[in-house]
């Protein structure tokens, strides 16, 4: 079991009171590609922020790689994320002044496990897999949206984390680019045996995942 969530419950109090997650429980195995779909506002993003340890204000239990996350301090959680969880957002969120390469290796530099030359090689390998190796030294803001999203995926993968969490990663992209992103995520699960949890509105994608879970008004229909 890679990820195990039990009775996750969350309320928003500001700006208005809202019971966004209602006793959500979920188990995900290694190598699975799990899709989360459902209406806008049903709570998908809220759940993903909790599962990726970014949001810690909830009740219930979350165990990732056997580690109870409630027992970790903010700093330990940050280090845990750095090592074990890759996150891809709906918007690509690259650091605009940094080059593609610099963006990709940021998590690895923080981890500090590899030498610079090895990191560069890893980054180029990832970019090749994603089909954008020629942009390695471009400033990231010069790339198109689809290209930037692929760079963001490369960044999420650079530390080879066991879990990738993606929140509508194709939400802003055209069909062609979306397909590339989905194919990549699926390969991550199947070839690398990593776990991918993704929120998406695209039926093509959630129907082609290993598991598709619908979220309705803060609950999961398993």
């Amino acid at each position, binding site marked *: 079991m890679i990820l195990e969530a039990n009775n996750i419950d969350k309320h928003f109090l500001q700006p208005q009171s809202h019971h966004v997650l209602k006793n959500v429980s979920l188990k995900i195995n290694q190598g699975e590609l799990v899709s989360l779909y459902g209406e806008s506002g049903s709570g998908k993003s809220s759940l993903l922020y909790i599962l990726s340890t970014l949001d810690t204000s909830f009740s219930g239990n979350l165990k990732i790689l056997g580690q109870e996350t409630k027992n970790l301090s903010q*700093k330990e959680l940050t280090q845990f994320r750095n090592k074990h969880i890759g996150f891809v957002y709906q918007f690509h969120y690259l650091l605009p002044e940094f080059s593609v390469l610099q963006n990709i290796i*940021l998590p690895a530099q*923080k981890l500090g496990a590899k030498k610079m030359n090895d990191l560069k090689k890893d980054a180029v390998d990832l970019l090749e897999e994603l089909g954008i190796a020629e942009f390695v030294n471009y400033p990231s803001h010069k790339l198109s949206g689809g290209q930037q999203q692929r760079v963001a995926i490369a960044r999420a993968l650079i530390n080879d984390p066991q879990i990738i969490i993606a929140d509508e990663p194709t939400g802003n992209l055209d069909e062609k680019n979306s397909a590339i992103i989905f194919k990549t995520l699926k390969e991550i699960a199947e070839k690398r045996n990593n776990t991918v949890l993704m929120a998406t509105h695209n039926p093509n994608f959630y129907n082609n995942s290993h598991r598709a879970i619908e979220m309705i008004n803060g609950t999961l229909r398993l």
Partner: protein
Amino acid sequence: MSKQSLNKTNLSIAIQYLVARKKQSVLAIIGVLLGVTTFIVMINFMSGVNDFLDNAVFKGNPDIVIKPTSKQNTAQQSYGFQLTNLEGLEEINRQLREHTNVTAYANQTISPAILVSNSQQLPGSVNGIFPIEEKNMVDLDKRLIAGKGFDNLTEKNILMGVSLAKKLQVSVNDTIKIILPNGKNTTLTVSGIFSFGITTIDNVRTYISAKTLQHLLGRSEIITHVNVKLKDRDNLDVKTLLLKKLKSIEIEDWKQNNKTIVVGNKVRDILTWSVSFALLLVAGFGIYNIQNSTVIHKRKDIAVLKTIGYTSEDIIFIFLIQAIIIGLIGAFLALGVGYLISFFISITPLDTSDFIIVDTYPINFSKNHFAIGFLFGVLTTILSGYFPSRKASKVDPVTIIRGV
């Protein structure tokens, strides 16, 4: 801040931001540069002036002067001219010898005199001194611009201030005649000319042997003044003590005679510190503003950095180091610019005023001034960079990522 956050990655991220916002970075650096430079130049100049006055006034004059009460003077003056002998001289000398705050003292006989050179005749006064004692009071050798000092003052010699010598149109080895109020006169050879840089000395002061003067006055024992140098100038205990013991004396201290200089020094100090502080405050505020707007503009970057593994400490470091780099560059440049400006001021000719006689503006190039300025600049930037950095570290990634 832990050592972990002080790494190359964080530093390179910080530098990246500085370079990306070149214009603001340069402006911030200029702000620090101006603040620190002003501080260095002002403090160099102000303390140059203070030192100069201190040197001229306090090194050339005694800290306290003991003389007969003026009552006695006026009483005797009604009988025509007569110098008043200082009563209780032995007791005074004993007290001064034993007092721990007294570094030196010297007995003097001072008399009005008319100074007559070949071409000029001026009313003035002569200080009759004992060279061995006077040497401990005034470091005349450093002030000599021609001839020799106290060591070579014989009973046939006279030393005088440079402006006085000019007025009398005499130079070393020329002779001048002094005529005392009792009508007696003698001819002396100028053996040295000195300059303290202030008119109150250079225009009027003469030194002759006390023995010569006593002889001319016909009173071989007469002493009119005792001059005293103190270890701690602000401690005037000895004055109180002497006044209590002896009723026939009057004591002037440096505070009475140099009030304007003491006040002037204080005013200059206050001016230096307040102007520099104000400028550094402005520079600091500039940095604060720039950092603050960077933090607001870079909220997304900060959120991303946090999600991918950068801790709050890393974020603080990344932003604080930007301020520190700005501070270091600005303060470092200010050392050079401050030195240059100070140097140019120090070679700028200065018109002699009523009070000061000096060729160029006095500047004190103390290493401390540069060190304090540098430290000040860097501290200001660290302080003004800290609050925006802390704000950056508190950015909540979820709020930002959700917020688009």
